[in-house]
């Protein structure tokens, strides 16, 4: 795990740095998406998530869930078009702060079957490039991460 100003940036994931979304390609060809540590810090404690249901097709840039935190509401956009095949609704029903506690693990949001993978022109980055891009963004935003569930 790589951390910068308190923000974890696992180098093995793919990132849409501007949208603050991470993607983990799965062995079956699907992709898992979640909020980054920076995203959960910026949003604050999650109060509720309304998930787009499995079977729903989502275009790139559209939201596969809407998130309401204690003080903010907004979309959780997918950088890659695809069809929702699973959501993490049950986990959030049991612990709504799971994305605040464990954004890259148990707090994942949705799993999609992407239309095309690897998806072209998404600007996704990984490894050292992801870390350097995120470091620049975190500096630009003057952000320090903390787990909002604590």
């Amino acid at each position, binding site marked *: 795990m790589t951390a910068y100003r308190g923000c974890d940036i696992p180098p093995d994931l793919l990132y849409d740095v501007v949208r603050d979304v991470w993607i983990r390609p799965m062995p079956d060809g699907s992709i898992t998406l979640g909020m980054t540590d920076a995203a959960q810090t910026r949003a604050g404690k999650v109060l*509720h998530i309304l998930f787009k249901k499995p079977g729903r097709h989502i275009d790139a840039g559209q939201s596969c869930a809407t998130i309401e935190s204690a*003080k*903010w*509401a*907004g979309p959780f956009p997918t950088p890659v078009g695809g069809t929702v095949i699973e959501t993490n609704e049950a986990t959030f029903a049991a612990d709504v702060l799971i994305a605040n506690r464990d954004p890259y693990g148990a707090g994942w949001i949705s799993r999609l079957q992407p239309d095309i993978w690897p998806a072209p022109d998404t600007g996704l980055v990984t490894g050292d490039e992801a870390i350097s891009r995120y470091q620049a963004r975190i500096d630009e935003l003057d952000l320090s991460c903390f787990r909002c569930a604590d």
Partner: protein
Amino acid sequence: MTDTQAIRLLDLSPVAPLRSQSIYHAVGYALGPDSPDTIMLVSPNAPYVSIGRHQDAAREVDLEYCAAHGFPVIRREVGGGAVYLDGNQLFTQWIFHAEHLPATVEKRFAQYIETIVRTYRALGIAAEYRPINDIHVNGRKIGGTGAARMDRAEVVVGSLMFDFDTATMAKVLRVPSEKFRDKVRQSLDDYMTTMRRELGEPPPRADAVATYLAACAEVLGRTIVPGELRADELALAEQFDARFATKAWLEDGGGLHRLGVKIHEGVRVGEGSHKAPGGLIRCIATVRDDRLDDIAFSGDFTALPATVPSDLDVALIGCELSEEAILARIVDYYGRVAPEIPGISPNDWLAAVLQATTTPVTA
């Protein structure tokens, strides 16, 4: 668009309730790379009820009452709770490029609220920022704020409170009992304030607007220039008008349940009941900063002396909201008074209090 460019001011005439919500969504979603940041000032020309993005309308709002009185109920994309709105509030809506506002919600609110606080102070009201997103005057809240992301835009909304109709606010909420509604009304009166209440007469709108815009220019360090809505924004507002008026949108909540009715950040009113062997205990509790500020027991139990419920009300006021502290006070009362309440133990009273303070209100 850079943050050195002028902010567009849209100071609109009063608009229909639906448009007072749809317009900032439209400007948010229409914001393109070259669009200006916008501060919009608008009031509704008729009363209505606005509900939070994920609230269950039928659960939170008395839809029949609203229909009977001609109050539209409109879901917004901003979170938070149900609120009754009318022409006595001037909505102050910021629709900015995300990168032109602080990155975290907390810092965004701090900046936004600073402008409201400065405005009230300039108008002679001792307003203070209470983090994260409240504005207080001597412990009373004056207006609410909220935030949302709309495509490229970060939106922060709030209002200048010329006046507020607490009686109607209490009536539009769906609550478990009229006693509970009375408690909500009382708490709104106790813990909310307005410019009318603070000043006797609210200032003229033009004075408040001029003061607010001066505060915004100062806090943001940017020029604010009057502008007009673009055709694409108006077209999108019409689309949002149509969407926000649909039953499907009203019902597209997702079932967010909150604990009691929030009056302000530190104050909420809740109701609960507990079935004990000796009867049903009902409890309405007002919690302020994690202490029992007010409490009222009732039920179908038999108690001697008959003053037990009201004695316990008094015994618990000011108590820290913890099981141990509440139970200790109830046990102390039992020790002092030795009441005869067949089938009801101190733990049953405790259970009723916990139901009122830790579970969502159900009507």
